[in-house]
């Protein structure tokens, strides 16, 4: 029988309870207790006065954010070996931070897992209603919902078949079961190809967008057109060769005119004009992110007002 509590990460002695052996009572009791605890905490939060609720959320935000601030700013232990103990309190904090990271990340993943359910519920509600009411293009909604159920089933069955001792054997296609072929057909043959098709559409969109952007309507558009033209031409071997021959006719290898080869102009444009501009924008974005992160961490942000 298929073990529905199969996990991707094998448990070890130091693993938390959610990594207990599959199907063990330890795991089931742990999940049940954690669920009850979570519901209890949410109930308590809802019972708290509205004013204090904000402070509770702010406190948790500060603690969670504080961990990541420490993670990024606290020095990392150098040359740490698996059995090492910290030599002083400073290094003790370092060890604690790096050991806690997988657990804190797991919390984030669990939360995201719960929220994914809400997202799928939204998808089903929108498309289910369209099917029930037989609205325009309802058949596409049916295809979407049928595909999602089918892929969830086939994907899990395929993954499950690859667990255990026989898993490595499936690296050889000769050992595949029908479910592995089904997964390969729908995922690799269907979804991945459709992804690639959507990606390739960009080529046509680039053409139409470039046509509009390069029309000479203003001084800025003209400068853009000229620089883009130089960069495009400098990447075309025939043009660069012809241009270089012309330059060589005008002067020898040390002549001033050699500065005007297409490659040199392109390098100057990208290194002297483009890169500093992008770095300038990056600085702005970085500082903006920092300020935004600070406001969120300290709960100074009043969103939606």
């Amino acid at each position, binding site marked *: 029988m298929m073990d529905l509590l199969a996990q991707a990460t094998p448990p070890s*002695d130091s693993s938390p309870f959610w990594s207990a052996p599959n199907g063990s009572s330890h795991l089931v009791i742990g999940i049940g207790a954690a669920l009850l605890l979570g519901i209890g905490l949410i109930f308590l939060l809802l019972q708290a006065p509205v004013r204090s609720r904000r402070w509770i959320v702010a406190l948790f935000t500060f603690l969670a954010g504080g961990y990541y601030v420490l993670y990024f700013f606290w020095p990392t232990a150098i040359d740490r070996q698996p059995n090492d103990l910290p030599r002083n309190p400073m290094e003790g904090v370092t060890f604690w931070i790096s050991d806690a990271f997988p657990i804190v990340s797991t919390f984030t993943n669990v939360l995201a897992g719960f929220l994914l359910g809400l*997202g799928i519920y939204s998808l089903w509600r929108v498309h289910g209603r369209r099917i029930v009411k037989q609205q325009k293009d309802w058949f596409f909604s049916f295809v979407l919902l049928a595909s999602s159920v089918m892929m969830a089933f086939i994907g899990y069955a395929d993954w499950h078949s690859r667990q255990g001792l026989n898993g490595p054997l499936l690296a050889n296609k000769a050992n595949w079961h029908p479910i592995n072929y089904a997964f390969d057909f729908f995922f690799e043959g269907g979804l991945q190809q459709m992804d690639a098709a959507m990606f390739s559409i960009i080529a046509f969109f680039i053409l139409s967008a470039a046509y509009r952007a390069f029309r000479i309507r203003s001084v800025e558009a003209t400068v853009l057109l000229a620089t883009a033209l130089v960069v495009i031409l400098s990447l075309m071997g025939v043009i660069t060769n012809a241009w270089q021959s012309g330059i060589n006719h005008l002067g020898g290898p040390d002549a001033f005119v050699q500065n005007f080869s297409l490659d040199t102009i392109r390098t100057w444009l990208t290194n002297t004009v483009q890169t500093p501009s992008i770095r300038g*924008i990056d600085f702005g*974005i970085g500082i903006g992110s*920092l300020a935004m992160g600070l406001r969120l961490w300290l709960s100074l942000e009043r*969103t939606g*007002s």
Partner: protein
Amino acid sequence: MGAQYLDTGWIAEAFTAMLVLFVLFNIWRAENAGKTGKEVYIRRIPGLNAIDEAVGRATEMGRPVIMVPGLPDYVDAIVVQAMNIFTYVTRIAARFSNPILVCCYNASVFTVAQEMIRDVYQQEGAIERYDQDSVRFISDRQFAFAAGVSGLILREQAAATFFLGNFYAESLILAETANSVGAIQVASSTQNTQTPFFIAACDYVLIGDEFYAASAYLTRQPVLVGSLVGQDWAKISVITMVLLGLLTTSIQIQGKTEMEKVASGPSKGTFAHVQVLSNPADPKSPMVDGPPRQMTVADTFMYRMLNPLPRDIKFHDEKAGTFERPQKPATNPATAAGGGQ
């Protein structure tokens, strides 16, 4: 040859602390602007004028406004920023009973967006006009999402689209599709590689940190305005440091020099430029090309922070940066392994 370590010293930590102080100080300044009578000024951003125009046009045409808060993996600062702008757009749309659609790539963003949009309708006293399906989870696969949103833009004949947040290769697919239905487009991507695509295809683009300035300008909340001024102070500091760096690297240091550790005096333990001579006793002797002294792990600022009292440190190999630590008691060979990252 051992490993060579890069050490930014205390400057990186000090610089971050300075930015944080600038932001916090200006938030405090803006919060107290009423008491001191000194209003904090921020200039107008042209791209933001387009927001009212775009929503107004959508109302006239009776067609929806479509908003996409990028393609994040989770709710991050960029998503919150995008949602701040979307709440402003939604507020105007709610006043004019204009339909909206928020398309989400990530389920956690979807739940946050749903709450924020419903709050806006509630604050505007128009909760009966709030459509639960106006915030939709589309897909968490990049091109499935692009296909889904493009389909919505075409089917709903969107009058205005707002693409704000983290966008990647799908940016042009979305922008060109919206352009094909004649929608007014306001866009911004924190990914520099996508900004040119938005500039080519959209009507208004918020470039770089204008994206972060938008909510401050639109809402005029003291916290946001103060934070924005703090950001500007930080940018001025960065520009000053760039100019100082330009100046110092432009001044040529005569002769061959190397970085050496100062052995005594107030700068003991720090690194300084020293001239390398063939005969150290004779300052007029010619300079030589000796092997440069490498900075070891023990010289880095981070290492010194971790080991404020370095007397107990014993190295296996100082240059390679491997040294001795006390060991966990090996009670069970099966559990002794593990721990280190």
